[in-house]
């Protein structure tokens, strides 16, 4: 309850701040849209030269991409702490965070939230809708619940991975380029994992489980029954990933060295 009220308090603060920089907001929307466009163009151009991607059609791939955008938007809005090391460790902002009576990760999530990224989720829904109508997909009432569960699962998978990476900063003082690269790897979860060889498929499923953000949950809505087990694992993977990352974070905070030492 306390955490929810804090959340809304921060959110109102956030909106007030953002409204002061309205042009920034517009530019951010546009660059987000471009980011989504780049990937869509890739898919469209590629399918100008081929009919099937290992048995998956163009519209199926587009559907997966549309689905991916929704958890990704949620992740980007709340857990996008790629600059944690620079901002909190190097500049010592972590000191301030640690002197307040709220869980440190929760505070950072609140301070770094970027609600405008949620718009990407709407783009995702539109892309999915477009692909679904071309594929003549039909949905049950409970698919909505599953959709929410899968989206949350995917969001927490992403969040877990990035929180874990941020936690590394507590051990290593080196500035790391892992974060930006991780976005690239995250992209591979958007394609059917059966195009990759065993090693990469294993990595994308169990080590950096990005496949649970795109292809696995989408397979359920595309009625690919052979993937159902993985589809239904999505929320579980989300919980596991997130829990592990928070434990890692808590261990990291104990190791925190402070700035300027």
């Amino acid at each position, binding site marked *: 309850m*306390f955490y929810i*009220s*804090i959340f809304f*308090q*921060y959110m109102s*603060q956030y909106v*007030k*701040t953002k409204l*002061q920089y309205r042009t920034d907001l517009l530019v951010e929307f546009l660059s987000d849209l471009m980011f989504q466009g780049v990937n869509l163009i890739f898919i469209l151009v590629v399918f100008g030269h081929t009919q099937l991607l290992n048995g998956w059609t163009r519209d199926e791939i587009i559907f997966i991409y549309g689905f991916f955008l929704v958890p990704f938007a949620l992740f980007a809005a709340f857990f996008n702490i790629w600059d944690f090391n620079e901002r909190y460790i190097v500049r*010592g*902002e*972590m*000191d*301030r965070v*640690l*002197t*307040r*009576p*709220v*869980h440190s990760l929760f505070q950072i999530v609140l301070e770094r939230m970027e609600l405008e990224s949620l718009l990407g989720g709407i783009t995702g829904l539109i892309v999915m809708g477009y692909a679904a109508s071309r594929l003549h997909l039909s949905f049950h009432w409970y698919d909505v619940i599953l959709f929410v569960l899968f989206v949350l699962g995917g969001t927490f998978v992403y969040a877990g991975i990035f929180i874990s990476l941020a936690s590394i900063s507590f051990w290593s003082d080196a500035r790391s380029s892992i974060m930006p690269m991780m976005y690239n790897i995250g992209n591979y979860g958007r394609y059917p994992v059966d195009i990759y060889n065993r090693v990469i498929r294993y990595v994308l499923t169990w080590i950096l489980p990005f496949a649970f953000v795109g292809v696995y949950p989408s397979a359920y809505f595309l009625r690919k029954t052979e993937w159902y087990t993985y589809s239904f694992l999505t929320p579980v993977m989300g919980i596991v990933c997130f829990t592990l990352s928070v434990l890692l974070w808590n261990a990291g905070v*104990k*190791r*925190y*060295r*402070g700035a*300027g*030492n």
Partner: protein
Amino acid sequence: MYAIEVEKLRKEFKSYSSRSGLAGAFRDLFTRNYKIIRAVDDISFTVKQGEMVGYIGENGAGKSTTIKMLTGILTPTSGRVVVNGMNPHKERERFVQTIGVVFGQRSQLWWDIAVQESFRLLKKVYRVSDQDYNEHMDHVIETLDIGPLLDKPVRKLSLGQRMRCELAAALIHNPPLLFLDEPTIGLDVLVKLKIRQFLKEINEKYNTTILLTTHDMTDIEALCERVIMLDEGKIIYDGSLQRLKQNWGEGKQIHFQFRDIVSKEELMLLVDATWEQGEDRYSWIAHVRATDMAHVIGKVVSSYELKDIHIREVSTEEIIRNIYEEGIHHG
């Protein structure tokens, strides 16, 4: 009941030194030279509720590290630390509810939004009731004279204005213990006076314990009866400021302004004291013990013609500097 109890507290950092040159850098890739640095070296002290303590030392003496361990930011390497009856880093979230922290060089407030918005958010974060908030903060805002600043964004405030707001922000939950790390750094005299006045007031009113680090000895003189002095991670003095002054600062400085140019040699021959040149060759300063004062003045006055003479106490600043330069032992 102590506000702060520290026993054999130690904090070690691992640091690596890099080898020089390109070849050295390559070697560093694979093996590094590690060195353990002991920033805080087995210190022990206690602070009673309601005390105002100055925590002083040179840069790198371990002040900040201690404060960070006391506030739960850093985990100690070894030793016992109990603050407000709790172990700071173990029960961090519950513990920080009972302290207020001001870092002079780092803002607690949100940069882009009005000060009162930050206050409102912090009020929520610290779960302060409306009634408590109004009762307590109205007074704080009035005393610090920040009422007119509340609707301005922090980035538009001057350093002095911001600092007063920071102080108010740290007191929103009316903590029984306040940590101030360089609270007056870079501020002008008037703001400094106002802040000191305010700190005294809350100390009297709420019996708030205050631990203060500063480079400005006038802060310490104005506020603290007790000082803890740190050097290379160890406590080298813990006691009243009064005693520190008596033991190491009993000397006086006598400034002589001569009518003619006088050389150091002549003066040395005249009286055996430490002579130091003033602004020009006409002025000299004698460092003497209080008991020798009359003797020295008598000698000089009888031998030379003087334009001016005045006597000055050794300032705390100078005492501290002397202690760091010469060590504490000869006192």
